[in-house]
């Protein structure tokens, strides 16, 4: 077995006991990257030299007997919308192609303090707008389970890197499912924390009331470990919440006796792939056999989730992306004659099709005369969606759904029909609108050998509940032990 195949919780002890060194581990991960990266294309930027330097520095610290952080020596890949000082942060967009972040995101400061090793920045849909990684300016990422298939999005690079062992841990961001849906497509674990649990400082803003940073990992325990490091209040993000951060690994010790799992009747609907349905129902049975109680619940406004999202997210995006004007940073068109023309040409040449489309939707929804009909209406329906969850959580501790209505689709299949692409987020989007945490973990494979994801949703700041259920399920199944056979 190669070092790159191991999980963080297996490696942490080996590193501290000096059975292996971070230098060896980091080299092993880069060896794997050299083997498969030209097929998968998980990364926008790799920094082997710096990673090895950092790994050696941590090895020295361990050797000296100095105290080290919780993730000492563990390689981590970072989605390319999270700023690392001195490193290119592109959001997979031409407009930020040469942007060098002048400061660290708070999650980066925290990871650095935990002695993790950054190996590179992962590919994504441009500005995190997409469900397939196809809108990246740097070309698409491919699914390690089938190279003609999308890895999901927008954190597709992070998911593919974890699935193909090109990294041990990864961070992604989730605005409407962008951690959970790629985790489902690539057969890994992805956790979107409660809104406000993790600082967004240094995450390039897409839709500020929905965005959250979270882990993509090989198993549930690793997700808990990474949450231990990144969660917590930050003065630099006024929307982050001051709460007592638990040790997320503690929740993994408990069984499922007495846990009530809500099954929304709106989940098993028309359009849900039959194989997805049968594997998710199989998972329900496993959980029931392990002592959990299944209860019927209803989330009656689920069908309005996508409509609400595609007003709120583009509206916030159209405001957030107004800053890309070619003045202070980023791409600037050299074809303009005056300032106004400079803004227009810079933005038109710098943004890709999907980003422009969403800026247009958002600008339309916020424009004079339409604000009440679209934006205000969406905010009101958001209240109804949140209330659905409040009611459901009176009956259930966690809610179980499929992560996505289908397994990963073919590259190019949905690029010409944006609405069809948007519909692939139907089960993940409402968690962002309500601000609740959600986790995706593998629960089977379809006949083509593509992974299928199970989603568990919890109450605000109850990540422990979903981690506990996920961990128990994982312990009793073997899905997470399978790896894609990416040929060298």
């Amino acid at each position, binding site marked *: 077995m190669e070092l790159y195949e191991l999980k963080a919780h297996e490696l942490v002890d080996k590193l501290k006991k000096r059975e292996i060194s971070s230098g060896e581990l980091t080299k092993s991960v880069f060896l794997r990257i050299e083997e498969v990266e030209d097929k998968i294309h998980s990364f926008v930027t790799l920094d082997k030299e710096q990673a090895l330097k950092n790994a050696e520095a941590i090895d020295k610290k361990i050797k000296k007997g100095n105290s080290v952080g919780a993730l000492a020596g563990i390689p981590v890949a970072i989605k390319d919308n999270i700023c690392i000082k001195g490193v290119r942060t592109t959001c997979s967009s031409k407009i930020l192609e040469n942007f060098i972040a*002048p400061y660290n995101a708070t999650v980066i400061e925290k990871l650095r303090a935990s002695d993790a090793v950054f190996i590179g920045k992962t590919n994504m849909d441009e500005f995190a707008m997409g469900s397939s990684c196809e809108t990246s300016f740097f070309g698409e990422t491919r699914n390690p389970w089938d190279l003609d298939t999308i890895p999901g999005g927008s954190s597709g690079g992070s998911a593919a890197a974890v699935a193909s062992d090109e990294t041990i841990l990864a961070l992604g961001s989730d605005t409407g499912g962008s951690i959970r849906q790629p985790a489902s497509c690539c057969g890994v674990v992805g956790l979107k924390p409660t809104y406000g649990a993790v600082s967004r400082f240094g995450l390039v803003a897409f839709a500020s009331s929905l965005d959250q940073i979270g882990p993509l990992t090989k198993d549930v325990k690793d997700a808990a470990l990474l949450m231990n490091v990144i969660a917590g209040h930050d003065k630099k993000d006024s929307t982050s919440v001051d709460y007592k951060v638990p040790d997320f690994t503690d929740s993994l010790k408990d069984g499922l006796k007495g846990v009530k799992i809500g099954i929304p009747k709106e989940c098993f609907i028309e359009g849900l792939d039959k194989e997805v349905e049968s594997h998710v129902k199989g998972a329900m049975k496993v959980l029931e056999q392990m002592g959990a109680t299944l209860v019927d619940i209803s989330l009656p406004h689920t069908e*309005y989730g996508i409509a609400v999202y595609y007003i709120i997210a583009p509206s916030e995006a159209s405001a957030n992306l107004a800053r890309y004007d070619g003045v202070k940073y980023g791409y600037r068109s050299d074809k303009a004659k005056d300032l106004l023309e400079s803004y227009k040409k810079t*933005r038109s040449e710098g943004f890709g099709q999907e980003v422009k489309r969403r800026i247009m939707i958002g*600008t339309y929804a916020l424009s004079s005369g339409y604000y009440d009909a679209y934006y205000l209406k969406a905010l009101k329906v958001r209240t109804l969606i949140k209330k659905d969850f409040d009611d459901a959580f009176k009956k259930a501790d966690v809610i179980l759904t499929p992560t996505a209505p289908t397994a990963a689709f073919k590259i190019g299949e949905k690029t010409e029909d944006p609405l069809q692409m948007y519909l692939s987020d139907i089960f993940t989007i409402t968690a962002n609108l*309500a601000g609740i945490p959600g986790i995706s973990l593998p629960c089977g494979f379809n006949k083509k050998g593509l992974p299928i994801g199970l989603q568990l949703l919890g109450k605000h700041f109850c990540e422990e509940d979903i981690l506990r259920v996920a961990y128990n399920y994982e312990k009793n199944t073997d899905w997470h032990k399978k790896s894609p056979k990416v040929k060298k």
Partner: protein
Amino acid sequence: MALSKKDVEYVAELARLELTDQEKEKYAIQLGKILDYICKLKELDTQNIEPTSHVLGLENVMREDEVKPSLGQDEILSNAPQKEDGYFKVKKVIE
């Protein structure tokens, strides 16, 4: 229903985007489709429902007005497409 070319041009102007004729045609159809889908929300009566803009009901967050270190001029200007004498340089604004 597709948007009119005039609507697309108006929104593009507000968003500071310059679209090609081909993009205008494409967006007119695609945005029309998306807006039709969004109109689904009209089915719901929301007259007595309060809007939610922040899920945790957060109020204004205040802090003491203290001077703290911030990025220096060089760092701020390090990504500028054009700069001169410590300033961002842009096209002439005032005639």
